[in-house]
């Protein structure tokens, strides 16, 4: 899938910008606060109808203005024109695909797949197990609607069960305890499905990660994501293992009034050369792993949904030495179309470029082609 052009009106710093993109690499260069990331942000909006960093629609409207509008022209097998606008007064966001209004943002998600590599990926390797689960869940959900639905069901069950457990903790009564088994069984059903999906996914995804890592880094470091569910990696054992854990921890769960076992506590360990990255990895290894994960996600999604996602890379080159910047710019050629922001030109001369690539300079919310 290719994004041909975008039009931004009152979107953050951009009062009115029209941008034509290359089918290959688009380098967006400019100083801090000039509106580079805003371009990535607007592309992300077109793909997901949501902001990249979790800010509200309201915050994206240019100061002194009453609305913003983003238009994008995608091309896959056919042309798709996406329009998103937000009007302060009505607090309404309107989404149109090919002039037809879309009322549910879920109808857009998945239609224009997108992969982002940003500074906040830091959390994926450095952060808590929850940050890694979030990453893994987002990759699987984008390729499997079934997984997303089970995950939603599981989280609802988790909430209900947690409420029940805390009620039991507060006042022990047979009526309350009586219900626990039913909620445990519901948890067991959805939870085992989640674990099965995750096991299968990690198995496949590991191949993509090591391939990506090789392309980002020359050295023979071997990356690996390790995942097991209470010591088990066998799909047909999962339900029994889960059930055992629920039985063993039943009294503890009641005493503490909260859910203690299940895939919501899963840990995905990132391993490099047999050692746990989080504990033993250098800054550089973390960065390389983060980059490899996103490239792996790109190629995994591309294979699964038979559509090339939009690739957004925010301010990553600034942190890399010239050797790795060059290596990654080579690898980007395999992606197809990508959007890359950079604060300065220091690394630019090292990048592998060809005449189809585009350099867009951004200054005070205006874009110029270099």
């Amino acid at each position: 899938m290719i994004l041909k052009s975008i039009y931004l009106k009152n979107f953050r710093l951009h009062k009115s910008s029209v941008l034509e993109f290359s089918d290959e690499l688009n380098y967006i260069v400019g100083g801090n606060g000039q509106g580079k990331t805003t371009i990535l942000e607007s592309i992300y909006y077109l793909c997901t109808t949501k902001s990249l960093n979790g800010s509200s629609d309201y915050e994206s409207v240019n100061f002194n203005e009453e609305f913003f509008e983003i238009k994008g022209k995608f091309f896959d097998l056919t042309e798709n024109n996406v329009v998103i606008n937000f009007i302060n007064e009505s607090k309404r966001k309107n989404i149109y695909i090919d002039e037809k209004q879309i009322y549910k943002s879920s109808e857009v998600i998945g239609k224009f797949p997108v992969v982002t590599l940003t500074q906040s990926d830091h959390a994926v390797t450095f952060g808590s197990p929850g940050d890694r689960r979030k990453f893994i869940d987002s990759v699987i959900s984008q390729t499997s609607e079934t997984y997303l639905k089970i995950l939603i069901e599981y989280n609802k069950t988790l909430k209900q069960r947690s409420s029940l457990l805390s009620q039991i903790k507060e006042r022990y009564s047979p009526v309350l305890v009586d219900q626990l088994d039913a909620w445990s069984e519901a948890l067991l059903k959805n939870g085992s499905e989640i674990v099965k999906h995750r096991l299968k996914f990690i198995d496949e995804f590991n191949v993509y990660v090591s391939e990506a890592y090789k392309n980002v880094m020359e050295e023979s470091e071997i990356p690996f994501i390790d995942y097991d569910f209470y010591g088990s990696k066998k799909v047909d054992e999962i339900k029994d293992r889960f059930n055992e854990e629920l039985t063993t921890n039943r009294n503890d769960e009641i005493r503490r009034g909260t859910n203690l076992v299940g895939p919501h506590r899963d840990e995905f360990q990132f391993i490099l050369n047999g050692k746990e990255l989080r504990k033993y990895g250098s800054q550089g290894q973390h960065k390389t792993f983060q980059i490899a994960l996103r490239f792996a996600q790109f190629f995994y999604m591309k294979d699964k949904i038979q559509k090339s996602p939009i690739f957004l890379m925010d301010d990553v080159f600034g942190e890399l030495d010239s050797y790795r910047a060059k290596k990654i710019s080579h690898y980007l050629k395999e992606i197809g179309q990508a959007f890359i922001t950079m604060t300065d030109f220091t690394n630019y001369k090292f990048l592998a470029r060809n005449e189809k690539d585009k350099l867009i300079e951004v200054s005070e919310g205006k874009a110029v082609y270099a």
Partner: protein
Amino acid sequence: MLIAEPLQIAIEELSKLPGIGRKTAQRLALHVLKSDINNVNNLLNSLKDLKEKIKFCKDCFNISTDDLCDICKSVKRDRTVICVVEEASDVIAIEKTNEYNGLYHVLGGVLSPLSGTDPESLKIKELFDRLEKEKINEIILALNPDTEGEATSLFLAKRIKPLGINVTRIARGLPIGGDLEFADEATIGRAVINRSSI
């Protein structure tokens, strides 16, 4: 803006109804205002009758005009099968199919610790009283396929099975007359897993 008070009150009351927003409420109120007084009286009386004359069947808790509903009274129904549903509206939905000839039991909701609905606030005890008194061969669980419906089904199944009664659940899958390609992934997935032989 000043709106005549009776109109304001009518809009206020109408917008309390489910699915009715302020704008629709205003439209309805203005429509009533323009209507013939006889029509308005008919509407009023029908609503009043609804509240005064309808009660809940003492056996199955379906809506009824008598102590027992027409289904529970009927001699033509199969009295060995009970279909358990969430609300009386589900009885109407199943009755419309003409595919079911047994009895019903309306729970009046589903288990939900978050909103404080426990087995005691549902008609679960009443269901087991029926199972004790009557000769029932099969219980069909026809609760919504959502989180709470699932948990409630599991809760009931676990307690009914030891009584030696066959417990089944309505199938879930593809809509009749629908195109396979338009169904969502989760539904198709479920339909494949729960496929039946022909």
